[in-house]
């Protein structure tokens, strides 16, 4: 059959963010799918190098508005690790609390968007109404509905009072009741089950091979969760289950997310109950000693990773962000192979894509030259040493100093 190439995006009713996909069709069947990222590229990593660590906390928060706490916590954790700061327990608990509240708002948001993509707008209206309960709690705790600004290097900026704790517990009861209703819809509503079952199949093997993360991987039976495997903040002290599913399709991803919501309510109840007394911050010097650290965080969409390299000044040397959607976007091409064009919106939506997080990549093209130049690893290494020597930083010297200091 004759092949047709359909461009989707950057502006398209099925897309919430500007991304461009190119789909090769044979009839209604998808033969090839390719994504072109970069419309949301703002140059945050470079901007981080030009700002101080404290400014970067707020900048990394704005990598993505939906998982803003994930990014800022991930960044702050890396910086604190380099500085060797010992964060007060209460601050870690508050970070966990806000992180889990964020997970609720993000999963409810996803449930609504997924409903919208399959033409079930009632679900969108319902979940977004219930989501406002969490938004009110977040506004009460942090002063802002989105981009909470609660993290700072060395702790958190606001305390949680006893009354606020009570209000949170009350809200959790309301939300749990609503979530149980959504579970009923997801497991009993035939139209929804039929629309989502068998759509966007991703086998366990493919999920592992393509490096899927978060609910996308867990719905394919990959039992991975940074919160349990490599506990950060206060996760080592709370009990929760990691939800996995073996449906391997969009239906499985829905079940995983709804199941995670229930676990999140449990975590929040434990956090409120166990929250220790104590200070909120420790003092961390403005100049962070030279060093590097990698920090991991289980964002609502999957594992988020930040790499920070410091050079002893008040500005970082390099910040690298690997957002969960970048890991998951590879799986979409696999999920769409030999599928119908009509499944495309829901399959893309099912990984809960966040392209604001993802658009970190740029190709470097020399002006005047046609070909892209590629540096080999050794050349890149030599170039970086040369570059920093020219700028007055000698890592060999710094390493010697560090070794001495460690002795």
């Amino acid at each position, binding site marked *: 059959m004759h092949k047709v190439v359909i461009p989707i995006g950057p502006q398209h009713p099925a897309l919430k963010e*500007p991304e461009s996909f190119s789909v090769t069709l044979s009839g209604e069947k998808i033969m090839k799918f390719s994504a072109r990222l970069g419309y*949301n590229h703002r140059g*945050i990593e470079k901007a981080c190098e030009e700002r101080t660590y404290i400014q970067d906390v*707020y900048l990394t928060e*704005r990598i993505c*508005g*939906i998982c*803003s706490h994930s990014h800022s916590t991930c960044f702050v954790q890396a910086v604190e690790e380099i500085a060797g700061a010992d964060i007060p327990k209460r601050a870690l608990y508050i970070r966990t609390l806000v992180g889990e509240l964020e997970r609720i708002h993000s999963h409810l948001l996803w449930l609504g968007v997924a409903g919208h993509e399959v033409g079930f707008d009632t679900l969108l209206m319902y979940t*977004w109404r219930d989501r406002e309960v969490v938004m009110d709690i977040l506004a009460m705790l942090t002063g802002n509905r989105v981009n909470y600004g609660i993290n700072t290097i060395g702790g958190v900026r606001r305390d949680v009072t006893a009354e606020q704790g009570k209000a949170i517990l009350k809200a959790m009861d309301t939300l749990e009741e609503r979530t149980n209703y959504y579970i009923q819809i997801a497991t009993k509503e035939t139209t929804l089950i039929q629309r989502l079952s068998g759509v966007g199949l991703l086998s366990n093997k493919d999920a592992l091979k393509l490096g899927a993360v978060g609910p996308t991987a867990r719905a394919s039976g990959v039992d991975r969760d940074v919160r349990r495997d490599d506990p950060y903040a206060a996760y080592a002290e709370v009990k929760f289950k990691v939800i996995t599913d073996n449906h391997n399709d969009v239906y499985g991803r829905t079940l995983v997310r709804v199941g995670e919501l229930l676990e999140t309510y449990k975590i929040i109840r434990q956090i409120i109950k166990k929250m220790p007394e104590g200070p909120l911050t420790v003092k961390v010097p403005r100049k962070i000693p030279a060093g590097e650290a990698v920090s991991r965080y289980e964002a609502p969409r999957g594992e988020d990773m930040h790499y920070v390299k410091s050079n002893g000044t008040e500005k970082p040397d390099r910040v690298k962000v690997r957002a969960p959607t970048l890991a998951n976007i590879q799986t979409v091409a696999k999920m769409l192979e030999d599928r119908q064009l009509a499944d495309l919106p829901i399959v893309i939506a099912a990984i809960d894509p966040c392209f604001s997080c993802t658009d970190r990549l740029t190709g470097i093209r020399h002006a005047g030259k046609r070909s892209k130049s590629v540096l080999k690893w050794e050349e890149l290494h030599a170039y970086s040493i040369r570059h920093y020597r020219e700028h007055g930083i000698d890592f060999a010297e710094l390493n010697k100093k560090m070794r001495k200091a460690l002795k």
Partner: protein
Amino acid sequence: MGLVQKIVTWSRIKSPWIIHFNTGACNACDIEIIAALTPRYDLERFGVQLKGTPRHADVLVCSGPVTRQIKSRLRRIYDQMPEPKFVVAVGTCACTGGVFDGCYSVESGIDKVIPVSAYIPGCPASPKAIIDGVVKLLTSLEDKEDKKK
């Protein structure tokens, strides 16, 4: 003003159709725009309806500091909209560039690319602010129509 024109203006003010376009925002303003359209805030009570294509829309709601990649697309979408058209810049980034001001790949503000009718600051602009901005825009249109008479 002829009767037909009167009806067109009246319906335009009573039921503006909007199109939402993310010009490199962090998603925060975008979820607040959708929150403004869903039951708690419900912009639809002012007749506002979200549309999928620029050719059906009267108001272009933009969020984000305009990245270099999206610049030409933003122009194209603006050009595709029928006259008269209005642009609302939602969020500090869309107004001035915000935290991204000075980044190598942003233009720092919608008004650097296309004319803007209303600015709604905030990081992100809360649904209440968005409703306030939209209502102010609609009221200003009403005033303009009154002055014409």
